[in-house]
Every structure is written in structure tokens, then in C-alpha cells.
């Protein structure tokens, strides 16, 4: 609420200022704005068109998909979605993902808030070391830890379990979340913003489930979608694959539409300070 008010004020100020500048600059401004609109419209098409194509393809029958990328569906194949949900197991993957994300999201917020509170509120020996120790995790590429992590999770009997993946998600979300909660109290990330970031990050995670969830009935969405795409080569159910992609995109899309402003301001604040 408050963040929006601030932003609108800032935009109004910016608009007024650019107008002032424009009034003085005068010359060539018509060409400038025409060229701008052209470039921006071009990129809009470049961004939207693939998604639109995906949506249309998800409603086409396989022979139509295979004949040309341009044809529109003769009849809308809603059946693609139900096949994706049941036969391609996207429904099960969806539930698996929801279980893991629910646990890891709550865990991440709880564990990192407690740690951030203790680190920010109190002075104690080793505080600096701990803080930089957490932050260092931001620098390290995940794939370096992948091999030992796989064996560690295996040794703990947590391979292909929800709990195992939840714990790993929490652990790997800590550097980012603690960093934001301590460094940017003014950016109003708050629990909600941290929740949004972690939701998107964990929902989109691919590498960790790929390695730590090796049994098919526990697959998460992104991983299941990947195997579905790889198998498509011989199963030839393209319609269901595109429908599965649309289904997987929906939660991200909803979160983005609901929280777009907050997401943008939080991310840019992080990048500007970082």
C-alpha cells in the first residue's frame, strides 16, 4: 500500500521532469518518440509472441502442430490439458511441488527470520564471521556442491523424499534471504516480499530436484516437464507437452500479476545496493 504510494509519487515527479526537459529540448522529440515506440513495440512482440504461440499450440491437435507452426486449431483441444494433467502426470508433479514449496517456504521464512533477527539485533563474538559466512553462499555455484550433496542426502536416507528436498531448499535459500532481511530493511522486503522471491526461486528450481528426486512418482514440475519434453521425441504427444507448459506457468503468472510492483522494487533495490 505504502510502497505503491511512494512509487506513484516518484513516477509523477519523473514524468513532470522529463516533460520539462522535453519542452526545452524541443527539436527532434517527435522522431525520438516515434522511434522509441517502434523499438518498444518490436521487443513487446519478441517477448509475447513465443508465449502466445505456446498457448495456441497447447490447443492444437498433433497433426496440426506437425503440419505448420502457423495454423490455428480447427477445434480447441482442451483434451490436451486433461491428458497432460493425468497421463503425463503433471497433476501429480503439481501436488509434489506444492508439498515441497509449502514446507520449504515456511521453513525458509521462519529459519532465516530468526537468524536475521539475532544477527541484526545483538552484538556477540563471531557475529561478523557468521554473517559473511552466510553471504558467501551467494557467490558459490550450486553445481559444485551437487556431487557431495547427492551422496550426503543419500546417506541421510533422504534421497527422493519431500523432507530431504525441503531441507535442502531451505538451506540454499538462506544466504539470499538473510542478506535481504539484514541489508535492506528500508526496501520494505518484509516477510511477504521475501515469500514472493523464494516462491519464484523455489518454484523455478530445476537442478536440485533433478539430482535429489530421482524417482518418478516424486518428480517436481520443472523436472517432470523436462523429462516429458525429452520423451516427447518418441511419444509424440506435443499437444499435451505444450498444455503441461501452460499449466506449469500459471502459478508464476498469478504471483507475477498480483505482486509485480513489489517484486520489481524489491529486486531492483537488491541489485542497486548489491
Amino acid at each position, binding site marked *: 500500500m505504502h510502497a505503491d504510494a511512494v512509487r506513484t509519487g516518484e513516477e509523477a515527479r*519523473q514524468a513532470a521532469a*522529463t*516533460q*520539462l*526537459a*522535453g519542452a*526545452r529540448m524541443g527539436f527532434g*522529440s517527435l522522431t525520438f*518518440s516515434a522511434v*522509441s515506440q517502434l523499438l*518498444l513495440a518490436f*521487443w*513487446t512482440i519478441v*517477448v509475447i509472441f513465443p*508465449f502466445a*504461440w505456446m498457448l495456441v499450440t497447447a490447443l492444437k491437435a498433433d497433426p496440426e502442430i*506437425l*503440419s*505448420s507452426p*502457423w495454423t490455428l486449431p480447427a477445434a480447441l483441444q482442451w483434451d490436451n490439458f486433461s491428458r497432460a494433467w493425468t497421463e503425463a502426470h503433471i497433476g501429480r508433479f503439481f501436488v509434489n511441488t506444492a508439498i515441497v514449496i509449502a514446507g520449504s517456504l515456511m521453513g525458509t521464512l521462519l*529459519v532465516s527470520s*530468526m*537468524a536475521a*533477527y*539475532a*544477527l541484526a539485533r*545483538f552484538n*556477540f563474538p563471531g557475529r561478523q564471521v*557468521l554473517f559473511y559466512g*552466510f553471504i558467501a*553462499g551467494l557467490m*558459490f555455484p550450486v553445481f559444485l*556442491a*551437487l*556431487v*557431495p550433496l547427492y*551422496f*550426503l542426502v543419500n546417506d541421510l536416507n533422504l534421497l527422493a523424499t519431500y523432507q530431504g528436498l525441503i531441507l*535442502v531448499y*531451505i*538451506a*540454499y535459500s*538462506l544466504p539470499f534471504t538473510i542478506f535481504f532481511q539484514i541489508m535492506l530493511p528500508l526496501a520494505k522486503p518484509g516477510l511477504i516480499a521475501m515469500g514472493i522471491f523464494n516462491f519464484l526461486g523455489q518454484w*523455478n528450481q*530445476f537442478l536440485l530436484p533433478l*539430482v535429489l528426486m530421482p524417482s518418478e512418482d516424486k518428480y517436481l514440475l*520443472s*523436472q517432470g*516437464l*523436462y523429462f516429458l*519434453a*525429452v520423451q516427447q521425441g518418441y511419444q509424440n504427444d*506435443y499437444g499435451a*507437452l505444450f498444455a503441461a*507448459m501452460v499449466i506449469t*506457468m500459471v502459478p508464476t503468472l498469478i504471483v507475477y500479476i498480483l505482486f*509485480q510492483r513489489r517484486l520489481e522494487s524489491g529486486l*531492483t533495490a537488491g*541489485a*542497486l545496493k548489491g
Partner: protein
Amino acid sequence: MNYQKYRLIIPFLLPAILLYGVFVVWPYAQAIYISLTSWRGVSGNKPFVGLDNYQRLWEDERFHQALTRNGQLLIVLPLVTITIALTFAALFTQGSQQIRGAGFYRIVFFFPQIIPAVIVGILWSYIYTPNIGLLNGILRAIGPGDVSTSWLTDPKTVLGAIAAVAIWSSVGFYMVIFLASMQSIPTSFYEAAILDGATRWTSFKDITFPLIWETIRTSVIYLAIAALDFFILIVVVSGGSTTMGARRAEVAALYLYNQAFESSHWGYASAIGVVLLILTLFLSLGIMRATRRETYEF
């Protein structure tokens, strides 16, 4: 007092330290040790071989090729992404009036950034597919006929095609960052410049660019790290880590993944990871040093 304090601090910190220590710090530490062994994963016994893996890497032609591809990404990703993002951000801020539909463009441009990489990858793999793909469909529709190629298997195009996907999905993010940075510049600077007869280009070059330099620098480092970590998109777009396309676009992290999870050369794979980590650290430091210039406080 002190006792009271620690009774709060310890339980608050303990879960984070435990999880982080067990699942993050310990695996990284182990990776460094494993890189000094010839472990094949079959037994718990890890034969210590010293720096043998590193020496083999030094002579490994395939690793050199992979690093060369990382080097190409290292130039292309920051250069192209930042140029496009900066251009769009400038269009929004350097114009004489507020661009119509600015809010809409921001929402649209930013959108691919938040879409799961797997979806982006699969979607583009079908855009690039020779026969039913969108790109060749467009080329056939507007082009002189047979310009369409199989983008993802031709060694000349495969890495570029996949890098284009990365650029496509991240331009909006960097544009939004540059916009925020540009909008924090006091407008009085521009007013003064206009009075002195500055044109749109000179005011961008002499005011905007130096004042957002810090943001550009941060972005270069982000993108450089992304170029070294590059790998998920290659696997997904080319339909598997061992496909022909993936082999022809193989970068260091993908080589690591294949050595580990396809060939069970855990020791060798870990050595690749350690080299990548060291390269990342040096590269970040190097870029920070090379791009240091006077910063302007305002």
C-alpha cells in the same frame, strides 16, 4: 543480562547454522577434497591422488573447448544484454515526454525473467526445431526460402542460439534496474545541461552514463557469473545433457555435470567445479578492479 541474551541468540541462530552447515558448507568443503581423489562412487573408499585431476584438466582438450565457449559467453552475454537493456531504459527516461504505455512495457519486458528456466528452454527448443518450429516458419514466410537451418545441431549456430534465449529472458530485468537507477538522478542536472545547450545524446553520455556506472558495473559482474555458470538452458533447449546439440555447445558446468552424473567420474567432476569457482572469484575481482572509476555522489 549476558545469559539472557545468549538464551535468545543461540536457539534463534541454531537452525540456520545447522542447515547451512550440513547442506551447504559441508558439501562444498567435501567437493574440494573429492577433487583430490579418483573417486568413482562405487565404494566409500576415495583414493587420494593429489593434484592429478587438475593436471589432467590442464591437458584436457574437451575442457579447453568448454572454457572457450564460456569465454565467448563471457563477452556476448554482458555486452548484448546490457546494450539492449540500456537502450530501452534510455528510451523511457531521455525522451521529451513520458513514453505512452511505459508501465505496460515494463511488465511485459520483465515477464520472461520470472518464467521457470525449464519452460523457457522447452519453448525455445520448439521455436528452433527445423520443421515445425516457429523461427524457421517465420524465415520461410518472410525470407528467400531456404535460409532455415537446424539451429540446435549446427556447430556454428547452437551456442549463439542458446545464448540468445538467455539474453531474451534477462533483458527486461536489467532494463528495470537501469530505469530505477536513472530515475534516481536529480532532474536539475538535466535542466542545467539543457541550459548549456546539451543535446539528448550528450546529456546521456555525460550525465546519465557516468551516474549509473555503479549499476552497470554490478550488472556486468552478475552477467559474467551467469556466463560461467551457464548450463541449464543448454541441457533443456537441446533436449538432454548428452545430445549432439548439447555436446556442441558444451560449457564447463555441463562438462562437469556429464562427468559426474553420466560417467561417475566424481573426482574429476569436482576438480572442474573447483576450477570454475576459482575462475568466478578471480573474474569478479578482476571486473571490479578494471571497471573502477571515480564514482559520483549525489
